[in-house]
């Protein structure tokens, strides 16, 4: 069927609207509606991936208008992979969320599910679109819905974190919009492939240079690359855990995808690396991002906040790999989009299970958790090992490609930063393991609201998802060679 491409985005969108209506009719029905929408989306994304692997790039013209005039969806291997990732993670998280939504925001479940599906629609649209302005609108849909969900979290700090995120998010999106404006002035087109053809050969143009700087800067702000990262930790820490579980793995990774799309499809390798010679400077910036993220993570007392600083660190990996200017680095960056999304998702699922039972996740609250929540902690340990980069898990393989790429370029400072950050992550996680495993939790929760009641394992629905995703880290690790050979290398050719 040729309409699968549209269905990926349209299904969650339509169901979001219906779920919104059902808030007034029968609120309990909004959950199955939203779930069905995402299921259709996952199925279509897999179908599209199979089609793309068989016949190459797909083009879907909206309402039949041909590309430079109409809006088109253009799906190649990279898109198709990220689409499967986004819809899959959103779907699994929704299954795991059912119980936590009842607990965290029981009075507004229907509205929450509506906003959640709109958020996923935005992410999927950003990934699938082949139009520069359409991309901006969908980024804003994603951002607006995420502001709303962040404010639902912590009653004291949630709204303030959300407002600060709005200020910085608006600056980022506006810079991107300005950049698109300059591209439009120069080419008169908004279609990515069309713009790429039209700006070929205009290396000296200052308009193109301005457009390039503004677009990349805007996307960097949106993805929280190191000097622009200040909004991320608070926003992701004080949001409800059901939302941090999906925003932490997806939002930043989709923005990295957008950056790679702009670099490869719109501006082109040749322009960035041979005309502007930006590789060196940006790899240094990424090195700083990795080190800064790691060091700041060391200083955190709250588990959730610590993990958000690790995200800042991981962004540095992907940006550095993408700007290395060679195939190995880019392979590492793309593979890391997949792996990091899975790892972060697994980590936050485990944190979600902990929050469901103990509410506060300061590291000192976790005493004796291995005995009480063994399955959750098992998933957490697997995900943590993957972040550190222990071989059978997938985190190792993308780091390996990144290191190979950096070696080929001679960027030894980047290699050093990768190794140091792995060490820092090892220190961080083993500190957590030690507290969870060795220190007894008998006196840890007496003064908490539900008294010395024994903490038990999280509900089965949450455990199954958490276990599945953690095991997928090993599967993705074992098959990473296949992923690189069938998806990433053919895309980079």
């Amino acid at each position, binding site marked *: 069927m040729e309409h699968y491409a549209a269905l990926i985005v349209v299904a969650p969108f339509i169901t979001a609207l219906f779920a919104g209506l059902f808030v007034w009719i029968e609120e309990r029905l909004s959950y199955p509606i939203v779930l069905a929408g995402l299921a259709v989306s996952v199925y279509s994304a897999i179908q599209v991936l199979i089609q793309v692997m068989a016949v190459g790039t797909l083009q879907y013209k909206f309402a039949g208008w041909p590309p430079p005039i109409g809006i088109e969806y253009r799906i190649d291997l990279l898109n198709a992979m990220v689409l499967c990732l986004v819809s899959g993670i959103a779907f699994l998280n929704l299954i795991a969320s059912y119980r936590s939504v009842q607990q965290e925001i029981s009075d507004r479940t229907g509205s929450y599910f509506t906003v959640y599906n709109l958020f996923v629609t935005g992410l999927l649209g950003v990934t699938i679109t082949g139009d520069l*302005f359409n991309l901006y609108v969908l980024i804003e849909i994603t951002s*607006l819905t995420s502001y709303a969900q962040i404010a639902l979290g912590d009653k004291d700090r949630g*709204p303030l974190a959300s*407002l600060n995120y*709005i*200020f910085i998010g608006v600056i980022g999106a506006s810079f991107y919009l*300005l950049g698109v*404006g300059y591209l*439009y*002035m120069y080419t008169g087109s908004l279609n990515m492939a069309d713009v790429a053809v039209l700006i070929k050969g205009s290396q000296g143009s200052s308009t193109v240079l301005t457009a390039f700087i503004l677009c990349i800067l805007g996307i960097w702000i949106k993805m929280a690359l190191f000097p622009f990262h200040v909004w991320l930790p608070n926003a992701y820490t004080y949001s409800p855990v059901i939302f941090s579980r999906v925003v932490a793995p997806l939002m930043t990774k989709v923005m990295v995808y957008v950056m790679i799309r702009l670099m490869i499809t719109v501006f082109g390798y040749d322009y960035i690396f041979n005309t502007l010679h930006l590789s060196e400077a940006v790899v240094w910036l990424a090195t700083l991002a990795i080190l800064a993220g790691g060091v700041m993570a060391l200083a955190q007392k709250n588990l959730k906040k610590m993990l958000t600083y690790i995200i800042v660190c991981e962004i540095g990996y992907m940006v550095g790999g993408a700007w290395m200017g060679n195939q190995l680095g880019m392979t590492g960056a793309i593979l890391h989009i997949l792996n990091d999304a899975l790892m972060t998702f697994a980590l936050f699922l485990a944190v979600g299970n902990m929050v469901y039972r103990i509410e506060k996740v300061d590291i000192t609250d976790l005493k004796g958790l291995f005995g009480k929540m063994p399955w959750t902690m098992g998933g957490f340990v697997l995900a943590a090992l993957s972040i550190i980069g222990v071989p059978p898990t997938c985190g190792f393989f993308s780091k390996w490609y990144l290191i190979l790429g950096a070696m080929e370029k001679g960027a030894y400072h980047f290699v050093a930063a990768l190794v140091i950050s792995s060490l820092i992550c090892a220190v961080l996680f083993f500190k957590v393991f030690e507290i969870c495993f060795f220190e007894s939790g008998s006196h840890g929760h007496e003064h908490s609201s539900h008294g010395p009641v024994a903490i038990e394992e999280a509900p089965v629905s949450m455990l199954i998802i958490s276990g599945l995703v953690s095991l997928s880290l090993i599967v993705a690790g074992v098959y990473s060679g296949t992923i690189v050979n069938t998806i990433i290398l053919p895309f980079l050719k």
Partner: protein
Amino acid sequence: MSDVLSLIVAKYNYWLYVILMMIGLYGMIAKNNLVKKIVGMNIFQTAIILFYVSIGYKTDATIPILKNAHDAHGAAIHAADYINPLTSCLMLTAIVVSVATFGYAMALAVRIYQRYQTLEEDELRMRLSEE
């Protein structure tokens, strides 16, 4: 000197949008009151809307509605007679986005005020560090 001046006058729309944008950015960074910051954010977005609309403009051009288009004797269509409608259309979407952001930010400001009884950022920071 006159070169610079004529450059500024010829391209005054760009200068205007940059100045507006900087005013907005200044408001967002330097102001202490959250509502003033939100207004600064709105000015920042409006600057970009003006930029887009101005790049679609042509001197002595009219709105892009085809005169006598259905008439067999209709005048030939010269692109130079009509302003570029696409940029204005794009900005309709951008206006919707900026209104939504503005409204939502204001709603958040209300929530913050209800919780802390203040909108001054330094007082908020003090309250947060006390708790």
